[in-house]
């Protein structure tokens, strides 16, 4: 186990992402609502750069109590990032595929030491 330096925390704005490369490995690091999340950049689908695509709120369909649909909405709380190759959509906080939680990206721990951000590899 080692620690891979990412950058200074003040250089990493909320809503941003960085890709760090360690040999053949690639890790996507996100800053979302003040927290850091890090995942393998190899999509579990066909190996695309899972962390390099669009960051977008989850789409929800809301139902009324009588089960009629109110239509489609962007979630107020759940954020996803989508693999740019075919659109596999992963939960920002867990790295799980939003449609099948068993499908998930490898998650890495992110450490903050003072102003320095590291990923534990």
């Amino acid at each position, binding site marked *: 186990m080692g620690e891979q330096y990412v950058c200074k925390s003040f250089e990493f704005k909320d*809503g941003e992402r960085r890709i760090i490369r360690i040999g*053949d490995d690639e890790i996507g690091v996100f800053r979302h609502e003040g927290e850091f999340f890090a995942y393998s950049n*190899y999509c579990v689908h*066909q*190996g*695309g*750069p899972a962390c*390099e*695509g*669009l*960051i*977008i*709120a989850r789409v929800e369909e809301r139902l009324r109590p009588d089960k009629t649909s109110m239509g489609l909405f*962007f979630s107020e709380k759940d954020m996803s990032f*989508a693999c*740019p*190759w*075919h*659109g596999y*959509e992963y939960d920002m906080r867990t790295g799980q595929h939003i449609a099948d939680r068993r499908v998930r990206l490898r998650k890495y721990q992110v450490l903050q030491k003072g102003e320095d951000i590291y990923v534990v590899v």
Partner: protein
Amino acid sequence: MDLISDRGRRVPIEDLNTTRLLDHAAKQARDRRYEDVLIVDCDAHHYENENLSEIIPFMENEVFKQLSLSSRTKGRGHISPVGYGWQDMGGRVTRYPMRSSEKTPVEKGPKRDVELGFRWMDAMGVDYSCLFPTGMLNIGLHPQKEMEFELSWAYARWVTEKVLPESQGRMYTMLGLPFSDPEGCLRMVETFGDRKGVGGFMVTSVREKMAVYDNAYMKLYRALEERGLALAFHSGPNWNSSTFQSCNRFISAHALGFSWFSILHCTNWVVNGMGERFPKLPVIWIESGLAWIPFLMQKLDHEFMLRPSECPLLKKKPSDYMRDMFYSTQPMEIQDMQALETTFRMMNAETQLMYASDYPHWDFDLPSTIWDLPFLSDRAKHNIIGGTAARLFKLEPRNEAQRQNLIKYGNYRGSTAAPARESTPPEPAL
């Protein structure tokens, strides 16, 4: 470049560079030593609609040419039917909205199309690709058969005279037929069938009315069979079709549409005994995935046993005729590995299935979708990923290791010439 996300939020995304986007595909190609294996992509696309100003002048009829040129002035109007839907999934598939940000040495035209093709082919380890248009896959929905012919003709001239010659022999095509005009189809085959890079002809199967068994087409099929050219049916969605009007999500119209048009036309092809009438004509069903094949085989065999008097030309079961035809892999439904293995067995995939990427469209498949399947023999892998297509389209290996592999799996014999015959004299200059 920024992409639009939820609530108008903008997310910066690196400008598109296909080589960079497909960096992980290139790693797969290196890890699996694809350079030793001839890989043929039987279905790849370019966006010919970005080059309409070059294509329209090849139209023959001056009236339709003038109409088209006028309609295109200042970007007004569409000259061919436009399929609607959300292919880019709101920008989640970034190469759609980012497309214009990709830099190439030549900004526009055939050289750019070929350069972009080489970028993804080289990244994936693809040696040859069969190039198809994108927008013109909807040509069968045009209400004017004259325009269908004019556009098919113009595209055929442009792609064979301007695009394929730039591709160093690595791209070939099956030219779209103006299927509403049987005489026009025949003229296309007679005119373009011998051109370099033409491996066959293609019917855009997104059509609301198409009788593939009509007597009017027999001359066409005979002409293809005599020339050793393939006939492909390329599927697609049509959300506007009355069949799919009740689909309130694109996923429904897309998933069903691609399967449906192949199911429909393949059924008509089989029950009318086309396999008996043209036994040497290679027929290829493109871009419907594979899950529809075992369904249709079982369904038709079941009904055929009950109603053989409606299909008197058939000398064997419908599924046997289906096993005589070819299929492209993409978009391959890799969900239940046992179901997929059964599908491969039922269709004789080892000899009848050919890899296709469909790149750059949103649901493209990498060669690893075939190469990594746990149940395939080495022979089946080599055949599907390129060997069968090498035989069918007479494609040469690009290095000695590929040649040895083609020989090893019995795919070299046919590979003695370029994918097409010598070029015929081009049409008169514009």
